[in-house]
């Protein structure tokens, strides 16, 4: 597998500062917290799966440092929090991380609209895995709004990219004065 790290800190022609592991961990915990915020049922089905989006983000932009295991651990936490089957989110998030690392070069090179299309595809795939798991294991089927969360997740992508990149930007004006 060829996924060397050359150019991982270059995005859109901009050279970024190296990322601290604590920063990655903190953003993941923040996403977990966002997922745990209690919401009314109609709203929660439309909310993006923040953890899936963050896992995908770090796997696309720092795949060689993040790897698959954080996705798996976060998946287990979400399984317990959501009262779903043990391993359901874990399997889905691991696949999300794999897709992110596998496609990271392509996604990084694309303009935002193509990035969003890729992210949408991966998030839908991730939800489809969970749906498949539930159909096989218990025969449960969700309602129509199930896949809306992928749409909102993909719509969130530009904001996530913009926000998480901020602390990694070099300060432009530090050389002046």
């Amino acid at each position, binding site marked *: 597998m060829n996924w060397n790290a050359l150019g991982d800190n270059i995005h859109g022609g901009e050279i970024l500062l190296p990322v601290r592991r604590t920063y990655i961990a903190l953003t993941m915990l923040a996403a977990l917290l966002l997922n745990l*915020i209690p919401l009314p049922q109609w709203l929660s*089905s439309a909310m993006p799966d923040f953890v899936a989006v963050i896992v995908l983000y770090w796997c696309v932009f720092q795949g060689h440092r993040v790897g698959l295991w954080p996705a798996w651990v976060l998946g287990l*936490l979400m399984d317990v929090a959501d009262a779903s089957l043990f391993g359901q989110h874990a399997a889905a998030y691991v696949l999300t991380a794999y897709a992110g*690392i596998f496609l990271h070069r392509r996604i990084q090179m694309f303009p935002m609209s193509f990035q969003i299309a890729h992210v949408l595809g991966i998030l839908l795939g991730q939800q489809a895995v969970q749906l498949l798991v539930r159909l096989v294991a218990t025969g449960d089927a969700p309602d129509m709004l199930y896949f809306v969360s992928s749409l909102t997740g993909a719509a969130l992508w530009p904001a996530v990219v913009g926000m998480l990149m901020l602390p990694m930007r070099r300060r432009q004006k530090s050389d002046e004065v």
Partner: protein
Amino acid sequence: MQANAPPIFNRGPSLTTRLAFFFVLSVVLLVADARFRYLEDIRAGVSVVLFPFQEVAALPADLMTRTGDFFVAQATLSRENDQLKRDRILAGADTQRMRALEAENAQLRTLVHATPIPGRSRVVAEILYESRDPFTRKIVIDRGSRNDMQPGLAVVDHRGVLGQVTRVFPFVSEVSMLTDKSQSIPIQNVRSGVRAVTFGLGHDGAVELRFVPASADFQVGDMLVTSGIDGTFPAGLPVAKVVRVEPSSASFARIHCTPLAGVANFTRVVVLGPGAAHPENPIAADPPTAPAPPTP
């Protein structure tokens, strides 16, 4: 920086191998959980780790409710207060009547040598959140095995039956609502006395009665209460209201109901303690001759 050095040399197993490892691990967990229910202890452990996060995540909603409470207008408060006082007087009168009836009932039961109906303990619990899992209808409450919660306990709010405790962790418990697909509650029609069972449909605000003969006496607007024959729910708790009766061509009617309890407006529920143990099923004592119950 060591971590940023390009991995020219092979570093551990390939990505696909690692994917396969984690995926197989997840599938093993899934099978162990779905088929054998082996993992409840691990789940409880993870739940303890997760508990502080859940508390923190619940803070914004708490804060919003509190600030909302703070800025409520005086007029609204006094109106609400008046209403509550009136309700309290009415409820007090009802309670007194109920006490008298209970005493009378106990006396009558001793006269006919029937077993007394035991009282149940009640625990007030806060709803932490509704599960995001779109496949099920579950809520998580802030009472766990430390507060003597156990699977199977009935959960009600002030309007009626909400569901049943289905999984207990040290600090929190999961409650399956009666709209969950796995939930069924034996009920009785208050008007006609006909017994049936409600089944959750997996979405909010609706349950249905199944296996009810088309000739059974159900009308729109009928009130359904727990019949108490399951031993989980005490008899007489309001459950649902009939909203539509479809006499189908088959011999069974389709009866749609709306549950009376709801989590949308409330943050507190009451968990009822365990009732008396049921006597042994005399048929179950003789397994070879007992036919298997039909599975729907």
